[in-house]
């Protein structure tokens, strides 16, 4: 029934925004549901079993793992962010809770974040002006929190020329602005 409700993107539009600057493409993503899932104390077995059952990957620290229907990345000890297709999993907590029961604390995070997928050749000069992480030596599937222009951001490296950034939703415009001016300066 949610379709009765007009959703707005973090940038305040009805459609996700795409910006292209030189070799870079910055695409807002609006179609991903997000939840935090944290293991309750002493529930290791039940937690792992439930995750297996509903196909929630539980990658190691600083890693992202793509799966279906769920992908996930590690955010803190015993805590992950789980990604799913928004169209099918808008109420992602309801989708996960039955499986995990008391083994996990699950919280909807979808709208706490703005997501930008950044792609393009020559990613290095852009990235090294945004974050202090040494992405060049990190493998694909690297995931970490970092700081971009004073904002706390989750960064996932999908490949040499492909990144995902999750930034605080309320500062979506500021984060996009930072990406744009930096892209211009190295394009």
């Amino acid at each position: 029934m949610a379709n009765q409700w007009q959703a707005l993107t973090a940038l305040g539009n009805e459609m996700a925004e795409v910006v292209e600057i030189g070799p870079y493409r910055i695409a807002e993503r609006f179609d991903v549901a997000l939840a935090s899932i944290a293991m309750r104390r002493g529930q290791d077995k039940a937690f792992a079993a439930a995750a297996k059952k509903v196909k929630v990957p539980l990658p190691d620290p600083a890693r992202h793992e793509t799966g279906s229907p769920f992908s996930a990345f590690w955010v803190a000890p015993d805590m992950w962010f789980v990604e799913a297709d928004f169209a099918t999993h808008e109420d992602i907590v309801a989708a996960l809770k039955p499986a995990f029961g008391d083994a996990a604390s699950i919280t909807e995070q979808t709208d706490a974040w703005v997501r930008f997928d950044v792609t393009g050749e020559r990613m290095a000069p852009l990235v090294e002006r945004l974050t202090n992480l040494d992405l060049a030596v990190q493998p694909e599937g690297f995931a970490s929190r970092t700081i971009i222009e004073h904002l706390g951001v989750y960064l996932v490296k999908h490949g040499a020329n492909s990144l995902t950034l999750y930034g605080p939703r309320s500062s979506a415009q500021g984060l996009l602005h930072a990406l744009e001016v930096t892209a211009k300066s190295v394009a």
Partner: protein
Amino acid sequence: MIINHPILGPRDAQEFVYLGDANLINRPDGMTAGIEAFHDYLYNRDNPAGEHRELWYHEQGDRSWLVVTRNTVTHEILKVELARDVAKAQGRSK
């Protein structure tokens, strides 16, 4: 500064928030300890010129509280531990 996070490896200290002497872990029990004990716990410091065990919070990271052993004269970092492990090792539980 670079803090060698026990889980995540070397991270820039800019990602962390500093609290102070790691002795703050040893909070007295409020039901048994009195004002004197809490006063000494909260206010007095060794403040050494040399090795110092101190609490850093990885706010722009994985939200772990760390106990960092650092030389306050040279800033050399000698050891980094998860505060939760240190607290448990010092007998703290619930």
